[in-house]
């Protein structure tokens, strides 16, 4: 069970270059099944996730966990759309968050090796991260995010540029994390993936939340025309 959720966004607004790119919006992220943020490109999905995680500061409004920010920060992790890997070996990448938290080298190495096993990268432990394939890179980023056993894991279109097989492998890892008690909050514009993963859906358009509903309700019949069009595969603007 999570000790940092729910997360409450109140009056959040993000302005960049004189334009409002997100909000104003309110959102409660509860301690329940995976939350999927849906919406077309440029809708503000990444910005919303980044505000929740605290790496983008909103121009207005507040994002509060039930515990102080410093404490909440330690219990969450973020997987970026394009994996950001350190110029180190795969194993050292996974050891890194543990070392930051003051864990000894030996213990960190053992934990990281175990984590690599779990995501199927055991054989690539000593390989430089830069030479891995796209799918392997994202799995490595995922391993690094999960190695600290976060209560909340943010995923920004983690499979957007990957093939079917890598996508399936990553979804399997995510299912494992989810059943291990990690709350997932994922942005995607892949409807199939949203159907497979989501328990709740936030539908974003032009920086605004158009719908927040349970996944079942959303996919059975969204109440807004925009969401209906999006589900049909029409171009929504």
């Amino acid at each position, binding site marked *: 069970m999570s000790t940092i959720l729910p997360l409450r966004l109140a009056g959040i607004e993000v302005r960049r270059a004189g334009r409002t790119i997100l909000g104003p919006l309110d959102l409660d992220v509860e301690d329940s099944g995976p939350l999927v943020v849906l919406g077309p490109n440029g809708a503000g999905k990444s910005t919303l996730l980044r505000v929740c*995680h605290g*790496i983008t500061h909103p121009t207005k409004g507040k994002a509060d966990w039930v515990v102080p920010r410093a404490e909440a*920060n*330690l219990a969450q*992790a*973020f997987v*970026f759309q394009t994996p*950001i890997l*350190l*110029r*180190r070996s795969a194993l050292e990448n996974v050891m*890194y*968050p543990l070392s*930051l938290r003051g864990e000894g080298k030996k213990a960190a190495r053992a934990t990281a090796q175990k984590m690599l096993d779990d995501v199927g990268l055991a054989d690539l432990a000593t390989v*430089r991260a*830069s030479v891995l394939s796209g799918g392997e890179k994202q799995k490595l980023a995922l391993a690094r995010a999960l190695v600290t056993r976060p209560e909340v894991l943010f995923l920004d279109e983690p499979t957007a540029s990957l093939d079917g097989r890598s996508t399936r492998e990553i979804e399997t890892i995510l299912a494992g994390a989810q059943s291990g008690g990690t709350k997932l909050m994922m942005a995607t514009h892949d409807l199939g993936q949203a159907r497979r993963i989501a328990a709740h859906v936030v539908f974003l358009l032009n920086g605004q939340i158009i719908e927040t509903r349970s996944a079942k309700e959303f996919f059975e019949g969204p109440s807004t025309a925009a969401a209906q069009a999006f589900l049909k595969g029409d171009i929504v603007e």
Partner: protein
Amino acid sequence: MEDIWSGIAAAFGLIVTLDRDLIDITLRSLQVTLTAVAIGAALGIPLGAWLAVSRFRFRRVTIAVLNALMGLPPVVVGLVVYILLSRSGPFGVFGLLFTPTAMIIAQVIIVTPLVASISHQALREIWADYHDLLISLNTTKWQRIRTITWDARRALLTATLAGFGRAIGEIGAIMIVGGNIDQVTRVLTTAIALETSKGNFALALGLGFILIGLAFLVNLAMHWLSRTEQRGRW
């Protein structure tokens, strides 16, 4: 022409027989330059790293000043250090003028901005790559600096070598503050200037070959480092 050929032959003779003056001068050059470069790197790399990860009001100005300092004419550096260290200057009591220490001080002033500026460029690039991740992982500023300097260590070694290349061939400043005193402050560059003016081409050329050899080695190492750096790229 004859003079030059016999000079070259004599120069090789000096090198092969490990002539005492030649060795002495070379070792002093290395001692002064390596010390200055070590200090310059110890100051310049942290400064470059700090500039890369910090956002403060005068950051751009600081970087511009740093780049300007890189172009400081060594002769002027020598002059200023001379004034500061001369008996009537503020640091005159230490009696450092015309000592290797004075030469090291002058070279540190020349090398530090260069190392800091090149380091900053490399570190800024890796910081741009790592930024979101390191923020997401709640790193402290100190952890950020440690991470990027470690992961950019090859580029930082290249920056340090560039500092060495600049310092080993420098003459303007060290001639002024060192005074080119035999057995005390005479180094490769000042000795070459002196021996040439005395018409002693053999020793001048011998010293010249060693200087060229050192510069060549440094550039080779830099080239090799930047190639391995590129292979590690994304």
